[in-house]
């Protein structure tokens, strides 16, 4: 017993000595520990500076553009003929094309994505969820060029069976396919938001005699609202910023129309068309790229601000 105590004391002293020895020897660690916040700050700053740089270039080039074409003309012009003898730079056809394709996409992705999320979060068993969610997220990894190709060679011919007047290039088909592309994003993010609502809250509602549907729509969705809004905004941003699908399947006609069977061009597709053509640097055509890009940027910026406001206004914190 006594020897045991002596051994025990020895062990205690040994451990303490080892630790204090390490404490003094690790000077380097102390410096790293102190420097780390600064290093991390600089790295974080890097991405912010990059963003600021991009916005700065956008603004300066856009200002150049507006010295040639008036702001009013740009934003109210219904014709866009950048390559004609008498070029006209009205951005409305592009805005129109962007909004229409995004609206079609969200009409597909919003309801289907939401219902998928509700199923996965509230109704599916653990096994089903474990299988379905990764597959869904895999879908999000398909390159958009594949979707574009799919829209052009499969969906458009299929739609023409039902809508004979549909053009070979049209806004409807890429809009729908874009919706399909966005479904996994909305479903997955909304599902995350809904599953993070604590079970205790669901039980509280069930304990009051609520049905599963009432729990879902009157407790879970309101509680997950800010996350759901965020998923929709990301979806919309994705639709607005999507390029390849519309560039391939909607052609490059700069029509200002609401007829979904016709070809339209979006802002992104215009940038691709002009940038991949040979627009001489310094020409109005070249600067128009920046003006359109700036418009696109302001578009998504407004959307983010709106979403932030909406999700804050209706947030139910738990």
């Amino acid at each position: 017993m006594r020897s045991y105590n002596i051994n025990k004391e020895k062990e205690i002293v040994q451990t303490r000595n080892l630790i204090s020895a390490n404490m003094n020897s690790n000077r380097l660690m102390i410096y790293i520990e102190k420097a780390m916040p600064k290093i991390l700050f600089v790295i974080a700053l890097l991405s912010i500076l990059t963003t600021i740089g991009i916005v700065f270039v956008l603004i300066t080039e856009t200002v150049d553009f507006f010295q040639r074409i008036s702001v009013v003309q740009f934003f109210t012009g219904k014709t866009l003929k950048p390559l004609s003898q008498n070029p006209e730079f009205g951005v409305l056809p592009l805005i129109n094309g962007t909004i229409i394709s995004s609206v079609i996409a969200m009409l597909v992705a919003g309801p289907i994505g939401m219902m998928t999320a509700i199923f996965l979060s509230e109704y599916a068993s653990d096994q089903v969820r474990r299988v379905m969610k990764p597959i869904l997220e895999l879908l999000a990894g398909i390159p958009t060029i594949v979707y574009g190709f799919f829209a052009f060679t499969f969906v458009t011919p299929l739609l023409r069976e039902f809508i004979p007047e549909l053009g070979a290039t049209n806004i409807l088909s890429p809009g729908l396919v874009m919706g399909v592309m966005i479904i996994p994003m909305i479903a997955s993010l909304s599902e995350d938001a809904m599953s993070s609502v604590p079970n205790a809250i669901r039980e509280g509602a069930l304990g009051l005699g609520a049905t599963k549907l009432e729990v879902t729509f009157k407790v879970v969705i309101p509680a997950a609202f800010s996350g759901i809004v965020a998923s929709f905004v990301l979806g919309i941003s994705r639709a607005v910023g999507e390029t390849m699908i519309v560039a391939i399947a909607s052609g490059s006609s700069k029509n200002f129309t609401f007829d979904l069977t016709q070809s339209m061009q979006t802002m992104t597709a215009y940038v691709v068309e002009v940038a991949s053509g040979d627009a001489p640097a310094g020409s109005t055509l070249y600067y128009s790229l920046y003006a359109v890009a700036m418009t696109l940027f302001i578009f998504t910026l407004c959307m983010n601000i709106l979403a932030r406001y909406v999700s804050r206004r209706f947030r139910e914190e738990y």
Partner: protein
Amino acid sequence: MDFKILTGLDKEKEAIDRQLVFTTQDLNLWYGETHALKNINLPIYEREVTAIIGPSGCGKSTFLKTLNRMVELVQGVHTSGRIEYRNRNIFDKNFRVEELRTKVGMVFQKPNPFPKSIYDNIAYGPRIHGIKNKEILDQIVEKSLRGAAIWDEVKDRLKESAYGLSGGQQQRLCIARALAIEPDVILMDEPTSALDPKSTLKVEQLIQELKADYSIVIVTHNMQQAARISDRTAFMLNGELIEYSDTDSLFSTPADQRTEDYITGRFG
């Protein structure tokens, strides 16, 4: 209240005196392979506080949650035997769980208000059961909050989030939420285990007041609490109902050795 030990004849007399809300016959319950409740036969009487005590894992919460079928939210649960609520088999296909849970309300171990305003928390139950009229809702909200002895503390902040309340207030809010749909029975699953002594006292006083209008079944870890507030007590151990009688005699002259060991603190 002065109860005798409930044996034979007395038990029958009691049943005549007081209506039964629940009768349980040979109730067995399994979580997958685990046999969690074994042949439980336990009557619950109207307008009384019935306490269920026992060490952790003895199945007391499971039994409580079986009474409003909340236990079925756990995957792989199956049961045998019968539970009758006012002479209706609660496992009957024609008895919708939503109807059962409307009549048999529940207060949980941790306060679980909805992430909504105080008002909307209380109005949630009446609303899902179709009450839309604003005046009636206002009435219900006030009555329920008064009923749960929290009205004076919250009447000026009904539109504020329930999450701004203290733990004890949140639990009384949850009791008010249960009261708002005027249930017949209120099940309480260790309602004070997450609360400080002062809040616990308030909730206990509240339970005493509530039994005039509602039948209450409370699961508690705290034997003193059971002795203080209940009329009858059931002692459970390893999924079995060991002893059930009126609270005074269970604590003063327990019939079973295991009950005596538990209430005198020899284990648990």
